[in-house]
């Protein structure tokens, strides 16, 4: 073994060892950076409130039976304004309690965003990693596929898929998953290619690490950062697009989902019944806003260039 190789191994072992500590220190700095940005803190608080609402929904409002995700219908109290006893936020044309929709809608939105972001993150990460690691024609084919997917505007693509699958909330989840994985594939591939060139990966290879080991220990942890930022932004974005598809009419009618409720309430605005659309829409806005604020804060805290900006 030559001198050069030995020093490289030493350097490799050292960097791999300190890499963890460096990463932890950076994570701490990121958290600090986020905490010092008031907008990010507001976003985090709103997210926390939304999560509490979603998780404790069955305890806040009695679940509708048999299906709690179906709006309860109080036919004795249709089109009631906010402040009506038993219906603090009023009722819809069909006697649906707006408050029930608002609270149980957060549960629906949480399911939607977790399922879509979770699945797209996994699929995108796998595809992007394969493309970056294997390279050659596999990379070429996968990336051209990604290019084609990115050529169709997101909402229109999701709308077309949901339309073909038929109107149901489950199909909206599926449609969004099909459309959105490509972003993660792109990010992941770029990360793999970038990190592959670093010295410590070279050094690890000289030591004789297997490709899988190098990937798991050196490449994957480094790629967590940009994927996390994208995932945070998507948590909000997915609910926004999902609600838009529901609003257009691609969910089952009558489910406790914010977009569906805005659509239901639309019919009443000509007669002055503003509440049925306003409150659920506000929830969509707050949800998307909170995740956008946190996502932006996260990106700023992670980007060394934005220091002091």
């Amino acid at each position, binding site marked *: 073994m030559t001198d050069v190789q030995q020093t490289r191994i030493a350097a490799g072992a050292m960097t791999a060892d300190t890499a963890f500590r460096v990463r932890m220190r950076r994570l701490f700095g990121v958290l600090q950076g986020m905490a010092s940005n008031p907008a990010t803190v507001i976003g985090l608080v709103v997210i926390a409130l939304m999560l509490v609402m979603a998780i404790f929904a069955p305890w806040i409002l009695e679940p509708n039976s048999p299906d709690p995700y179906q709006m309860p219908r109080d036919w004795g109290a249709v089109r009631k304004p906010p402040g009506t006893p038993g219906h603090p936020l009023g009722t819809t044309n069909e006697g649906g309690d707006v408050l029930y929709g608002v609270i149980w809608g957060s549960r629906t939105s949480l399911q939607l965003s977790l399922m879509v972001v979770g699945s797209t993150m996994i699929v995108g990460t796998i595809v992007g990693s394969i493309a970056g690691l294997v390279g050659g024609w596999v990379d070429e084919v996968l990336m051209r596929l990604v290019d084609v997917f990115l*050529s*169709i505007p997101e909402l229109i*693509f999701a709308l077309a898929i949901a339309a*073909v699958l038929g109107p149901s909330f489950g199909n909206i989840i599926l449609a969004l998953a099909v459309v959105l994985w490509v972003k993660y594939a792109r990010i992941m591939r770029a990360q793999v290619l970038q990190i592959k060139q670093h010295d410590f990966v070279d050094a690890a290879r000289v030591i004789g690490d297997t490709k899988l080991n190098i990937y798991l220990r050196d490449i994957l942890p480094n790629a967590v950062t940009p994927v996390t930022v994208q995932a945070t932004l998507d948590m909000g974005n997915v609910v926004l697009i999902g609600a*838009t598809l529901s609003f257009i*009419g691609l969910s089952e009618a009558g489910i406790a989902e914010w977009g569906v409720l805005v659509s239901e309430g639309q019919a009443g605005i000509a007669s002055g019944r503003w509440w049925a659309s306003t409150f659920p829409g506000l929830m969509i806005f707050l949800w*998307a806003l909170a995740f956008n604020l946190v996502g932006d804060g996260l990106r700023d805290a992670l980007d060394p260039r934005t220091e002091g*900006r």
Partner: protein
Amino acid sequence: MQLRDYILRRLMVLPVLIIGVSIVVFTLTRIGGSPVGIYLSHEMTPDEVAEIEARFNLDKPVWVQYIYWIRGIAMGDFGWSGVAAAPVADVFPLKLAATMELAFASGLVALFLGIALGTYAGARRNRLPDHLTRIVAVSGASLPQFWFGILLLIIFWAHIGIAPIGRSDAAIFASIAHPTGLYTIDAILAGSPTALWDAIWHLVLPSITLGYGATAIVARMMRSALVEELQQDYVDAARAKGLAERIVLKRHARRNALVPTVTVIGLTFGFLLQGTITVEIIYRWPGLGRWMADSVLRGDQATLMTYVLFTSVLFLVVNLIVDLVYANLDRRVTLGK
């Protein structure tokens, strides 16, 4: 890499992407089942069904059907729209004009307003105007357009009662000819101030609804680009020459900040295109978006395929133009991967 090579390569990739999109769209609609359904009724015998299938080449292998579809498109035959009860190709131009009028009105306003807002905020970094612009930018990206539109309708249409709905007043519409389908242009061509006012008046609320988010995108990009540029050495060098701050900002920093801002025009265009769907539903705007929404709900595959293919091609072309303009503008840009 030379600019010319870059342009050539981009132009060569474009048809590949368009073919890719067309395959995706075609595959998608076939997953939903044979489109023969819209021609059938319950009384038909299996023989009659087979006859219809044969008439529309639906008995052939899928890839042959794809070829027939593409050949039809090449000859201007986009199929039959069940929703419009007419050939897609006949209805499409009219709907397109309506959508483009809305998108352009919103886009132009968003571009100028966004650049102005972004410049104003970027030059006053971390001061009140900057914080306000940031709120506009983040809220614009989070605002559900369909909800925003409904809020505006609740206030200005249902409550105050000043805002119109639809695209024009029926009597005024009938009073002039519509050679272009863009009502503002038609009104100008006809020399009718009433019609022009009517067209603009109907455009106001939909444009605000659609343009708010787009303004946010542009303003945000312009702000960060300007902040970046203001930290460059040449800005200090310009000050060292004795230039007034106004000239340093406009002639030096803003000029350079506009270059990266060009890149968001593609993004903004996609945003506007998507946004027309819900905005047209809410304001009963007779454009492509509402047609698409109706088609989706009623299984009108020909319209759906045409719409997705058309918007994607438009999106690709706009992005290509933006990239080429950018490569040409930014003399610092390094071309290639």
